[in-house]
């Protein structure tokens, strides 16, 4: 047995190494989907595929979830995806909800914002939850799905060391504590993080901008009467000339984040006494324990293409953003949401391989949107030139007394799902008077329905008749649609009809709108279903 090197300590051991029968075969075993990397994105995708009956193997080079929180803010769309997959409620039960953000400059509070979540959605705008919990709840949900028969196989301490893409499959070499073995995949999804060994191994680029700044994270545990709100400082007395952030997490843990600047002595800054001094500067004289500290720098990068033949990139391997705006894991969860049903449809028959290309088109569009937003925040927080600093300070000068300047303060534009405008999967938008927010390509807005919510019902491809009847189930060219006829009133009417009297919506399995019309007409519906399945790509 060789020595098994771990790159990080873990918070939860969830999938200890066990020898798999594949390791004793002479010829490599072929699986429909292999996912490299069991971070949040790999696990979410595995759960989605398994629930659709697609055989999936997850290879992760550790036996559990890494220590240290990293992500703490999980957005509404992520929670909706997790509701569809199962663990949404557990996340919300454990998470901290917050709406109020307060912005300080020096000693003074200059501005307060309220996320003001719109009424009539099951989920809040955001919860704060440590990333290890988020990942653990996904793995717990995988265990439940496995018991119910989902063909998901998680292999811990399985490090992919070589990847050989072929025309119709991918061959992998995997190292384990028992030595190496080979395995094959019809489709390989690289969810192996920002330093993706698969990406590097294939010689693919990861281009973008590095931001010249360092941030110190100190997650501390303390009993404090501070309310659950986000506090952000420009130039506070305890961190002059820099910014700082304070945010509540479950278990009495607080995320403190200090901007340090570019030229720092990293070792000195990580000295425990020095960190304690910084923390006391922010929270005053109060007892606390250190939970996790780290210094991070960031870059905003994306791959040129997210699909390379039978190798697909999802999550941080495909795109990396600054932490401002919480667009990393939240963006990656939408990758998983977008890809799961497409891989299933291609592997199970009704869709051509071309459907996978639409994953690249749609998620690259979203990736660029996330990078644009998070780079703009970084430019505001880390002025790179005298002009940047001049206008940042001008905005802050005006903020206190003038409402018009407040929307210009950019301490993070919080993650919102992308609308896939211009996607080749979008069909007709034939509903005069309907709201733009539910146009083809956009994520379905939630709304109350009976004792629950609309999104509870949109778990597969659907035809939604609002004030117009649709059949309970229809099969068109091998695609089965669930039919849902709803009355044209309340928030559903407001969010889906606007001034239209009635409508038919075609909804994708990932709860994005594919097409909409005034009335059910089999011809145009069949056309849009074909388009949604990538037959027009």
């Amino acid at each position, binding site marked *: 047995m060789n020595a098994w090197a771990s790159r990080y300590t873990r918070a939860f051991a969830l999938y200890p190494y066990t020898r798999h029968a594949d390791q004793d075969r002479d010829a490599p075993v072929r699986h429909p989907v292999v996912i490299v990397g069991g971070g949040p994105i790999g696990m979410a995708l595995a759960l989605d595929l398994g629930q659709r009956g697609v055989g999936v193997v997850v290879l992760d080079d550790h036996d559990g979830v890494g220590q240290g929180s990293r992500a703490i803010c999980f957005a509404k769309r992520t929670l909706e995806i997790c509701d569809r997959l199962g663990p949404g409620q557990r996340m919300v039960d454990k998470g901290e909800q917050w709406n109020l953000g307060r912005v300080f400059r020096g000693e003074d509070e200059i501005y307060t914002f309220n996320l003001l979540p719109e009424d009539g959605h099951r989920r809040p705008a955001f919860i704060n939850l440590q990333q290890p919990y988020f990942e653990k709840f996904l793995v717990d949900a995988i265990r439940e799905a496995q018991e119910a028969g989902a063909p998901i196989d998680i292999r811990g301490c399985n490090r992919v060391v070589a990847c050989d893409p072929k025309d119709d499959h991918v061959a992998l070499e995997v190292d384990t504590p028992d030595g190496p073995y080979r395995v094959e995949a019809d489709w390989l999804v690289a969810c192996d993080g920002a330093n993706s060994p698969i990406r590097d191994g294939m010689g693919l680029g990861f281009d973008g901008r590095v931001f010249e700044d360092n941030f110190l994270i100190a997650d501390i545990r303390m009993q404090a009467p501070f309310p659950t709100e986000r506090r952000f400082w420009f130039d506070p007395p305890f961190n002059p000339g820099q910014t700082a952030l304070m945010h509540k997490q479950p278990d009495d843990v607080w995320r403190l984040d200090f901007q340090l600047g570019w030229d720092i002595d990293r070792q000195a800054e990580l000295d425990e006494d020095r960190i304690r001094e910084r923390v006391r500067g922010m929270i005053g004289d109060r007892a606390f324990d250190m939970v996790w500290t780290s210094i991070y720098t960031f870059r905003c990068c994306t791959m040129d293409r997210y699909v390379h033949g039978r190798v697909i990139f999802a999550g941080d391997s495909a795109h990396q953003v600054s932490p401002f705006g919480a667009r990393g894991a939240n963006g990656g969860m939408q990758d998983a949401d977008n890809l799961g049903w497409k891989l299933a449809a291609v592997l199970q028959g009704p869709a051509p391989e071309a459907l996978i290309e639409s994953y690249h088109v749609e998620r690259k569009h979203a990736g660029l949107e996330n990078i644009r937003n998070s780079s703009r925040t970084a430019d505001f927080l880390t002025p790179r030139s005298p002009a940047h600093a*001049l*206008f940042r*300070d*001008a*905005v802050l*000068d*005006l903020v206190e007394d*003038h409402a*018009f*300047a407040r929307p*210009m303060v950019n301490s993070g534009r919080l993650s919102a799902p992308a609308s896939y405008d211009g996607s080749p999967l979008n069909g007709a938008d034939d509903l005069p008077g309907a709201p733009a927010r539910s146009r083809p390509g956009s994520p379905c807005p939630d709304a109350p329905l009976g004792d629950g919510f609309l999104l509870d019902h949109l778990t597969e491809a659907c035809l939604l008749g609002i004030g117009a009847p649709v059949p309970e189930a229809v099969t068109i060219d091998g695609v089965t649609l669930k039919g849902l006829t709803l009355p044209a009133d309340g928030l559903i009417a407001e969010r889906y009809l606007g001034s239209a009297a009635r409508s038919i919506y075609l909804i994708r399995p990932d709860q994005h709108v594919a097409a909409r019309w005034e009335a059910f007409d089999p011809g145009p519906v069949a056309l849009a279903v074909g388009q949604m399945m990538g037959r027009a790509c």
Partner: protein
Amino acid sequence: MLNTDPNLAVPDDFYAALLRAHEGLDADETHALNARLILILANHIGDLATLEEALALARGKVVEGDATTS
């Protein structure tokens, strides 16, 4: 559309007011005032296309004056 025709009723009055606003300020304070002024006027104009035209016009003058700037 950016209006580049003469539009101030009494241009000399505006110019004098602009100089008055900067009176007694050092270079940093003058820059800061100008930056605030730009934000205030931009908000008043509101229309992004118009603002982009104005920015291009202003930037164009800089580029013309310095052939090495790309």
